[in-house]
């Protein structure tokens, strides 16, 4: 019992001593506030720093390497279903290695804030059939320099180069190469069902 009392008194003494010491050198609660404020500020700054750092890393990854994209719309059925999740890579755009038959993501020519997902049918200099195949008089057009001709796989339900013409290469954002969702379709992409649309030369 006496031992406990002694201990309690000693703790009390230490606390009083601490307060007295700090009173002498200033107000103890102020110094406590200051250390807390400093710690909070340091934490905030560290948080901001980390946010900026990881934001920048994410930007670089999405801009130069690739990322996961969700495609919506019926224009690429049956290769890519409505609201499918896919992997897209941006390296082939930076190295200018987009081929005929690749599925690309590009900025819409009429609305730069929205993206479109189509298949590349012709590269610059290719001859494209612009009339319907059943027409007697076939009309062709050549893809100009620095442009690509893109079409959806669902030819009946797709707004593409057949309506707005070839699009500049600079609008291309990335190339889709792998499907994640829906799981039944997991895997690499199928070839185009409209292979007759590709030019021979």
């Amino acid at each position: 019992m006496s031992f406990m009392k002694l201990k309690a008194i000693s703790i009390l003494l230490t606390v009083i001593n601490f307060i007295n010491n700090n009173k002498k050198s200033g107000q103890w609660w102020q110094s406590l506030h200051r250390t807390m404020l400093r710690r909070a500020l340091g934490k905030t700054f560290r948080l901001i720093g980390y946010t900026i750092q990881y934001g920048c890393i994410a930007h670089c990854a999405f801009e130069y390497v690739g990322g996961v994209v969700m495609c919506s719309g019926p224009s690429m059925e049956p290769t890519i279903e409505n609201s499918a999740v896919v992997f897209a890579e941006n390296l082939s755009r930076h190295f200018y290695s987009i081929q005929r038959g690749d599925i690309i993501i590009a900025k819409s020519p009429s609305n730069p804030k929205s993206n479109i997902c189509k298949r590349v049918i012709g590269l610059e200099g290719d001859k494209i059939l612009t009339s319907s195949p059943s027409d007697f008089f076939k009309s062709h057009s050549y893809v100009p320099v620095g442009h690509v001709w893109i079409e959806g796989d669902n030819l009946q339900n797709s707004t593409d180069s057949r309506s707005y013409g070839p699009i500049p290469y600079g609008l291309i954002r990335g190339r889709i190469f792998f499907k994640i969702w829906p799981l039944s379709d997991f895997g690499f992409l199928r070839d185009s069902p409209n292979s007759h649309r590709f030019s021979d030369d």
Partner: protein
Amino acid sequence: MAQARGWLRRYLKAFCKGFFVAVPVAVTFLDKVACVARVEGASMQPSLNPGGSPSSDVVLLNHWKVRNFEVQRGDIVSLVSPKNPAQKIIKRVIALEGDIVQTIGHRKRFVRVPRGHMWVEGDHHGHSFDSNSFGPVSLGLLHAHATHILWPPGRWQRLESVLPPERTPVQTEVQ
């Protein structure tokens, strides 16, 4: 020996840490906020690279200003060339979507700028590869807004957004 190895290891660690912070931050800054570029060619004379100047101009390109693809008529902008995706060109915006513009040496005499497009021209008519040869360009090709001339020091100035009076669109879309 062991001490030297420890020092080297610490140094490498610090270097890697700094590297993985500094490079992404710098790249993002240059992509999203601002960068500088040297202007080549005579297509924007007399605003940029005026004759008689020994060195070509260096301009400040502001990416942040065009993050929502908002440009005004008269702005000097840089964009990805529609003919060569590896090249950037610098031109003045003449008309925005919906405007009707009178062309110089284009296939058609009057052109209505389609939705999401703009009409760009160099200030030096006849010596510029611009919308008069490749037609209206998509806003998606927009790269940055040129706001200042930084170099040579004697030519340090703000680039004003002025539309040449003789190149005002015939009809402008009210927004």
